[in-house]
């Protein structure tokens, strides 16, 4: 591919990535922020493509755009509406911002300082195989630890969700008590009343 096409792709994708990322900070609405995040992620996937890293690009889209962003949307939808605003308080976010800026400077310094030699052509054709082999053979321990961690997170999520269920039961009970209190017809009594011969119906 010629320089012009490559540069065009690189600069537009870089603009997309950084523009999306900046819009995340600017937008007040969390759902808008997620959508900008998706745009940024897509830009990164495009950058991977320009590096001929098809596998990683596709995985980036699959995981970050298809899964992580959807997960974020779920989290937002499950959050009470009052807490859905983007942060408003500069006092609490300033230290965090400072830390982020420092980390970014450090990363950029390392990135510029490192001597990235040209990648061998052969490595690119069989990325999937290489990644798979290195995961299963070379990095088997971290891989397994990651798997265990994810399983633990899964179990934790289930446990949290279960707890909510009990709350709902309590909620229903309190509603029933409320209904009993104001002297109206109690739906539970009404739905399943004792036989008329045993007692009174609907009273």
């Amino acid at each position, binding site marked *: 591919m010629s320089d012009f096409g490559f540069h065009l792709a690189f600069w537009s994708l870089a603009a997309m990535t950084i523009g999306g990322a900046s819009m995340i900070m600017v937008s007040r609405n969390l*759902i*808008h922020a997620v959508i900008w995040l998706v745009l940024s992620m897509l830009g990164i996937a495009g950058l991977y493509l320009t590096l001929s890293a098809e596998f990683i690009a596709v995985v980036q889209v699959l995981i970050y*755009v*298809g899964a992580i962003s959807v997960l974020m*949307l779920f989290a937002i939808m499950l959050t009470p509406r009052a807490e859905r605003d983007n942060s408003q308080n500069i006092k609490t976010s300033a230290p965090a911002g400072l830390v982020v800026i420092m980390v970014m400077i450090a990363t950029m310094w390392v990135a510029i300082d490192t001597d990235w030699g040209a990648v061998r052509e052969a490595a690119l054709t069989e990325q*999937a195989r290489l990644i798979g082999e290195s995961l299963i053979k070379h990095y088997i321990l971290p891989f397994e630890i990651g798997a265990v961690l994810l399983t633990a997170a899964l179990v934790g999520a289930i446990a949290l969700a279960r707890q909510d269920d009990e709350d709902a039961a309590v909620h229903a009970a309190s509603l029933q008590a409320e209904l009993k209190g104001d002297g109206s017809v109690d739906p539970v009594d009404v739905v399943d009343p004792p036989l008329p011969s045993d007692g009174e119906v609907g009273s």
Partner: protein
Amino acid sequence: MTDLAGLSSVLGAWYDFRDLNNLQRLITEWIADWGPDWLASIITGVLGALGILGVIGPTLLILIWVERKVIARFQQRYGPNRVGPKGLLQPVADAVKLILKEQLAPRAADKLIFFLPPVLIFIPGVLIWGVLPFGPRMSVADLNVGVLFLLAVSGTAVLVIFMAGWSSNNKYALFGAMRAVAMSISYEVPMVLALLTLVVFSGTMSINGIVQWQQQEDVIFILLFPLSAIAFFFAASAELNRTPADISEAESEIVAGYHTEYSGMRFGLFYAVELGNTLVVSAFIATFFLGGWWLWGLDQWVPSWIILLAKTGAVYFLLIWTRGTLPRLRVDQLMGFCWKALVPATLLFVVVAFVERTLLISEGWDTTVALPIMAVFNIALSLGAVMLFARVARPAPLRRPARIRMAGSDIGGLRAAREVAARREAPQLQVGGD
């Protein structure tokens, strides 16, 4: 095994309609002679996109007609038969009507996000066609990670659906969007696992590679992994929001789901992409499980893309059939079906595929003997798994049969009811139950 060298010598000329790739290659070479090479890549890309759109556009219009006509026949009606010969122009008339209609937006809608989805939904809808192999060398992009690409692109559509539902500021739309998202991330799991079975067994992630594997081994995957094929079919119809899994636009519950607030051509775009996705999913089912463009040597004589279209049509008919016959499942039932039935079943066959692949490679079994044995074994295993599931996972209310008794001379209230219920004779009608 097909003689590929001989085939390509036959397929060399640009006018050979069996392989339209020749045409494109000639154009590319011609441009490369005089222009810069980036122009060639851009022009071939544009040509490919135009080719896809040229295929989808008219096909969609015909498909709407086919679907309406077939459904009408299921329902003892004629279907569209007024506009044009046999009603063929009805979809065109509908499209013109939709374009002319006013496009409304709710006042409280999130305007930008509301306007984007009908356009954005087209991107995955069109991109996904890019990796579909119409022939040995006929796909716009023959990626070596084609399977992953397919999953990644189809996964992004759900985000657009969420945008549409959320920005409408309508509760039906939000319900539809949340249902669509929940469905999509759930049914992606069995879908991925079903495809993983094929990837493990054939050892390639290229879609064309999977077809070529089936061609090489003279077997179609639905025979080897029938349960994966069925699971993929279910998962695909769930992702496509088609009955019996159309909960995200369940008409009787949430009106039209996430596109409730879209009118005019905006709705038309959603509708078109939905139909287009149905077609492309049929094509992928045909490709993965039915051998795609290959059909036991027939592809030597008939253009491969016609074979693919025929198989696609058969799968598409199956999708229409289920839609016309079955009621819709509930949200929790669909989720339960996914996680309790499809995921274990597909997972089982990933393991089976892994074991069988290992036997084939490391033990060096003869495929001509081993594959039929494996097919028989897998079919038996699938049947056993389905029967086990039917026995174990049946919901409690369905375990008792529903009975209708005749009251006879017992007419009255609770006392008569007890007498009728206590009768010893067989009920008039008894359905369901274990």
